[in-house]
């Protein structure tokens, strides 16, 4: 092993039926460093992590860990844990029906007797030191996604690990929470823990990391010290080509002109729902891209869910193209040409065990009706068309959608709605947890749709992204729309001020 290394992976190979997920990948983690693992969707980051943690058996190569002679064999997550490797996955893998403390200690108690008092006390202490707003006895499922994520991190941190893997830990955290996490990561680094940090946020990489390893299409591109690899080069390494897509997008924005007059495609008045959203007004014009922004839990998702009829609508009227319509369930909304890409991709978006093809045709098929299924050939044609159009990386259209990477799953759901040819598309956090390349693709797609006369509501936690795509922003706070920004007001500082609230905000 190299001097100072805590973990060495050499020549790791992993195959899935029809897909080469990893090919001769080397990875070295040194003591007390934060090492970013970067790559596009399907580059093999998650697979590499899963091989390391024993979720997948590797098909070739060896893993060495400091303090152990020779190659270690890791056949199960338990082995990995025993070897000092702790993981926090992108998707929360805790048990929502257990309490916070139970989740933190599950599988780690020694012997057959459990001292619950001790456990709850221990958990309370960790939660307090990490500043996580949860009580040990609280049921995990009742916490917000962000808190659940932090509990997962707390669990991993508490396990006295040599190697800590954070797989997209920040994708559902807001800025303050991310800062807290970074503080924690730096503390651990000072204690000599090696941290593998998988993320799509370039800013975060340059904020905390020491080294970067880049993967592309299952192969190793290289390992770099962070000072040697400026952002633009990192992006081009990940994409495998030199480009400046960001600039392209900004140019596009200027060309996407929105007609201010005319009847709104959708106009909601005093809409409220059982999910606890206060009555709000909302409208969007043809060819417009507007955005909903606000902190986590500010009611962005509840707002659009009410429009789509996903929650029980308790009050308010909706007009489409000037005519009053009644939307009481998603099918009503779909029939009026509304599409909705939900925030929680795994829980509300994909139908995991079904194939990519079935996932793509699902919405259109439901609209067509129970007694009129598409023929196999027709479904095949639809799926192939959109797999090609959105460049979805999948072995075939028969592959179960759950075996795709996060970004490709998101593209499948996008394909599903594009196939229904909606006049109004709601995208709730479409870019969360997916790589930069796909993010740019999705942003471009949004603008393209707008230029074709479709209306899009875009929700994102990243203000940059919203500024690039939206011509008007509705700001939410405490389940209420508190302001609307457009034109020259549409600046980062103005948005921040409105989100934060206070005297100058429009109440």
């Amino acid at each position, binding site marked *: 092993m190299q001097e100072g290394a805590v973990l060495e992976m050499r020549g790791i190979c992993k195959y899935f039926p029809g897909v*080469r997920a990893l*090919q001769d990948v080397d990875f070295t983690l040194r003591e007390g460093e934060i090492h970013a693992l970067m790559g596009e969707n399907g580059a093999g980051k998650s697979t590499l992590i899963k091989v390391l943690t024993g979720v997948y058996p590797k098909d070739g190569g060896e893993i060495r860990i400091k303090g152990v002679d020779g190659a270690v064999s890791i056949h199960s997550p338990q082995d990995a844990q025993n070897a000092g490797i702790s993981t926090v996955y992108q998707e929360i893998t805790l048990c929502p029906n257990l309490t916070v403390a139970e989740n933190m200690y599950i599988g780690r108690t020694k012997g057959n007797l459990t001292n619950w008092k001790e456990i709850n006390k221990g958990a309370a202490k960790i939660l307090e030191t990490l500043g996580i707003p949860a009580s040990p006895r609280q049921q995990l499922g009742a916490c917000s996604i962000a808190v659940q994520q932090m509990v997962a991190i707390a669990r991993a941190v508490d396990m006295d690990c040599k190697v800590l893997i954070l797989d997209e830990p920040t994708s559902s955290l807001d800025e303050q929470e991310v800062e807290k996490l970074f503080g924690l990561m730096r503390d651990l680094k000072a204690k000599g823990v090696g941290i593998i940090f998988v993320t799509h946020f370039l800013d975060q990489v340059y904020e905390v990391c020491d080294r970067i390893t880049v993967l592309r299409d299952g192969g190793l591109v290289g390992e770099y010290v962070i000072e040697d690899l400026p952002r633009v080069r990192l992006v081009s390494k990940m994409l495998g080509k030199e480009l400046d897509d960001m600039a392209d997008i900004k140019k596009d924005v200027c060309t996407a002109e929105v007609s201010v007059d005319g009847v709104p495609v959708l106009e909601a008045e005093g809409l409220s729902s059982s999910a606890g959203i206060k009555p709000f007004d909302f409208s969007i014009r043809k060819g417009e891209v507007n955005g909903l922004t606000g902190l986590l839990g500010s009611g962005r998702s509840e707002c659009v869910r009410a429009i789509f009829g*996903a929650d029980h609508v308790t009050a308010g009227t909706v007009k489409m193209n000037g005519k009053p319509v009644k939307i009481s369930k998603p099918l009503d909304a779909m029939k009026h040409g509304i599409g909705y890409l939900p925030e929680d991709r795994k*829980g509300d978006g*994909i*139908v*995991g065990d*079904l194939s990519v093809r*079935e996932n793509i045709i699902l919405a259109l*098929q439901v609209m067509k009706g129970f007694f009129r299924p598409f023929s196999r050939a027709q479904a095949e044609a639809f799926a192939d068309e959109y797999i090609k159009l959105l460049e979805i990386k999948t072995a075939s259209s028969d592959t179960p959608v759950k075996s795709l990477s996060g970004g490709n799953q998101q593209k499948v759901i996008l394909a599903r709605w594009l196939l229904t040819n909606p006049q109004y598309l709601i995208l709730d956090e479409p870019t969360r947890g997916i790589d930069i390349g796909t993010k740019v693709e999705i942003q471009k797609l949004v603008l393209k749709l707008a230029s074709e006369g479709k209306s899009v509501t875009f929700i994102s936690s990243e203000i940059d992204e919203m500024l690039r795509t939206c011509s008007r922003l509705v700001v939410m706070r405490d389940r209420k729309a508190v302001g609307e920004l457009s034109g020259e007001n549409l600046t980062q500082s103005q948005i921040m001020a409105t989100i934060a609230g206070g005297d100058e905000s429009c109440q």
Partner: protein
Amino acid sequence: MPVIVKEPKEQVKKPQESFWKRMTRHQLFIPLAALALLVLFNLIADPSFFAVSIKQNSLGNPVLSGNIISVLDNASELVLLAIGMTLVTASSGGQDISVGATMAIAGSVILRMVCGGQVSADSPCMPILLAVLIGIFVSMAFGAFNGALVAYFKIQPMVATLIMFTAGRSIAAWINNNELPIMNDVSFKYAGTFLPGIPVPTPIFITIFMVIVFWALLKFTNLGLYTQAVGINANSSHLNGLNPQMIKLLTYMILGACVAVAGFIRVSRSGSINYSRIAENIEMDAILAVALGGNSLSGGKFNIYGSIIGAYVIQFLTTTLYKYEVPSTALPAYKAVVVIILVVLSAPVVREKLSHMKRTAGKTVKEAT
């Protein structure tokens, strides 16, 4: 540090894992292999097992007789239940354990209708088909009751259907005032025995008909896609315009219809009913058939043909054991042993290991040569 992509390696890899893996991975592999094993066992032990002869039945008509005919005939009720149970399992991730009791209810209703409330009737009081339709209707209503508990009140299927499991046979007895009506007219027994002049047992035709109906339902409607989508991810299905509750309810009602037809066949075999014994423990065999067919009992993706083959495997096994004169009291124990083996073999963990083992074995052979 660019990495050279080694394309050839991948090409070598592919064909190696293809045939055995594809075969063992296929959902129908285990049930078909089990069926093949049973056939093989009987062929070796006593080929006369498969002998089919022509005998006179009680009415003096020549009919086919033999073990194989009896397997096909006696499996009929189980096949129908397995079909419905597969859909219920797929949509709700649980099983209906009240199917045996509901069969008793359906059978009781049909007998009550054709006997017109008498204890013994010599000719049907109403057209048999009408009585069967009423039986189907009642059975579907009970299915709707179960389905509503599961779909709208979100009660676990096994708990929800425990109610009818417990109460069903009493309700069946109550329908006929606790009498045991007997239908003496020969036409009533056509469905459970033989049609005049046709040497093949009628239940086999009814089963074929029902399998074709469900093949058509799955092909020409979205029943399969909807139940699977709802079973895998109800939230997502809702956001795609489906009504998950409605679809769950629908599958329980479809099972109700299957149960009624099975109940009709059962009462038609003898022309009478024994409330506490009719179709006893058949719910367990039905669930087993679904599992043997390689379907996950926690719902989602399903293969209805797997369940059908599973049902025949169970009946084949029972008949084989009878043939070797296993006492009927010991039968469940023998069955359990075979079932354990089959279920363990079809468990994903074991199948993964099996296909892996075969692959490495193939590799070493190659290296040796």
